[in-house]
């Protein structure tokens, strides 16, 4: 009887190949996104770039907290360390932000591993872990804010250069190159996420998330892989920080390490779908333009919303209501819910 079954059930293994659905989707997204800046009106490009920055930040959070199950409430630290490392290198030493990015990724990863190691050493989990990451990010903010060596609360202005340089990641205002640069970085982070999800590390991360004890009992070195996951996530967060600084050309302790940044990092994958490859991108596409959309509606409201025009605070309220609606009605996030529905079919 057993023999019969072996013959009738085809091995599911052969279907796995490098260019799977996710890879093809990534290629399609890149193809679709390349002409985007040519289609946008110039004022909307910064929104497109905000989507990119949000998405990278969200992807970063998603690696650690979505796949890895370690709820981070301090992603601002990674973002800020990336932003600050590259700014310091660029402003003080004229070093290219590409090298600054690499350095920032390393610094963020080291910080992440250190904090993570401390937390796990003392067996912090769940809410406690989240609060600890929050506390560390806040301490970083407070320290940077009063450290004269890194300009304290003044922060850094990225010096303007003449013309356009890929090496210094700086282009004239409104240049489409900014979007394409962001697209390259985003595609890199998406690719990293896809490869991560199918890699041994990714599988181990999910196993640890699902049941740490069981993962350990089958021989997975839990601590090492948790720290690996954190370092990947931290490095990705640093990329977001570097690109942010290069686009906005200014960074200060609040922008880099503020609690709001950490919340942003959580919000994006939650709205998109935690622990899915595409969730953060979807979340970012929805959230990043939201402020602009609500602000635009309220600037020139449709007739039935006329009474809202020019009222301060309404756009943020609308934003808050939308977040509430998404969480209440799509608890697994937009992409996560759709994915579930498709699976059920």
């Amino acid at each position, binding site marked *: 009887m057993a023999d019969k079954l072996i013959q009738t059930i085809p091995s599911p293994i052969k279907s796995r190949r490098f260019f799977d659905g996710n890879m093809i989707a990534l290629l399609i997204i890149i193809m679709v996104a390349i002409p985007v800046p040519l289609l946008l009106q110039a004022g909307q490009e910064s929104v497109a770039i905000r989507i990119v920055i949000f998405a990278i930040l969200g992807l970063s959070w998603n690696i650690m907290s979505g796949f890895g*199950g370690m*709820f981070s409430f301090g992603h601002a630290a990674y973002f800020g360390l990336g932003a600050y490392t590259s700014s310091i290198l660029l402003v003080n030493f004229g070093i290219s932000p590409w090298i600054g990015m690499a350095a920032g990724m390393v610094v963020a990863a080291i910080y992440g591993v250190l904090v993570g190691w401390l937390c796990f050493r*003392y067996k*912090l989990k769940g*809410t406690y872990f989240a609060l600890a990451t929050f*506390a560390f990010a806040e301490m970083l903010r407070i320290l940077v804010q009063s450290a004269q060596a890194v300009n304290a609360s003044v922060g850094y202005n990225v010096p303007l250069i003449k013309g356009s340089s890929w090496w210094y990641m700086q282009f004239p205002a409104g240049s489409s190159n900014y979007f394409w640069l962001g697209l390259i970085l985003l595609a890199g982070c998406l690719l990293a996420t896809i490869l991560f999800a199918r890699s041994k590390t990714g599988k181990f991360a999910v196993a640890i998330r699902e049941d740490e004890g069981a993962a350990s009992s089958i021989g997975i070195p839990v601590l090492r892989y948790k720290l690996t996951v954190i370092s990947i996530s931290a490095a990705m967060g640093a990329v977001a920080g570097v690109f942010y600084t290069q686009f906005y050309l200014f960074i200060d302790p609040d922008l880099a390490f503020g609690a709001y940044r950490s919340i942003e990092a959580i919000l994006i994958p939650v709205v998109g779908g935690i622990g899915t490859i595409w969730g953060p991108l979807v979340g970012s596409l929805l959230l990043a333009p939201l402020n602009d959309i609500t602000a635009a509606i309220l600037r020139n409201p449709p007739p039935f919303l006329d009474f809202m025009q020019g009222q301060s605070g309404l756009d*943020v309220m609308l934003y808050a*209501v939308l977040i509430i609606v998404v*969480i209440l009605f799509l608890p697994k996030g937009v992409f996560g819910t759709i994915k579930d529905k498709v699976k059920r079919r």
Partner: protein
Amino acid sequence: MVSTQTTASADSAVSRGWQLPPNAKPILVAIAIAILVFFLAYLRTDGSSLILTQALVTGLMAGGVYGLVALGLTLIFGVLHVINFAQGALVTLGMYVTYVVANDLGWNPYLTLFISIPLLFAFGALVQKIMINRSMGEEHANTLLLTLALGLLIENALLLTFGGNPQSVRTGQETVYNIFGAVATQSRLIAFGGALILALLLFFMLQRTSIGTAIRAVASNPTGARLVGVNTSRIYVITFAIGAACAGAAGTLVAPIVSITPVAGEVFNITAFVIVVLGGLGKVLGALFGGLIVGLAEQFGGILFPDQSNLLGVFIVFVLILFLRPQGLFSSNS
């Protein structure tokens, strides 16, 4: 997936910890650290006992209010396992209630407690029922973000209604009291005393009344509580409402002290988190003592690290507690 991370320690801690534990060792350690800090501060101030007394008095008085805010937070966490990020915004709401009633109707600001507490209670119940309840038992992140969005909603609704200018509740000329050479204004003393009294009232309500027993039962074992006939969803509503009422009361108590803006309650949010961890998630008395400790940490942190934010001292205490006693100072040993 994230919810699988909910710590067992949090669950079990709730069941144990409505009272001070018999095991006083951690408290002794805390006292030892406190003495050390005090000594360092003494050196730092060149031995001015007046400054230290003032720091003690100020810290304790600020801590009382922090404790009241944190109390609501810890109760909500202990029973609903929700981190209420809107707690600070609820404090702000309490401030504005007081502002409106005291300034427009001419009430004594402290009498507005009789309005702010029931109002915030009702508001909390409503919010739990129509919003939080739908999301409970799901991922941590979801309730966290729901309350976050709620906070934004409240703040900006207040901005819309009252504008962004700082408002104040007039109490007239302040009387200043002398405490061992240190000084305290009347409104701060009232805020401190009021917070303490309300916190203790709440504590006894939890200990002595049937509703309190039901809340404690749900906190320690929801399934068990349901089996013995407790209407858990009602308890969830009531608990969130109490948590909101605590914030509202705190808002009223500090309204005469602070400049009231739509974001004025934010300050209380972060300290409240610290306190909740400090006191042990879900512990009422822990929150109160934690509040006092954070109040002191703020003051002595300011003396020890004069160029840093006063929050630095708070965060240092926070991290120390997280690593040394993640179950909180006031829970029995596991």
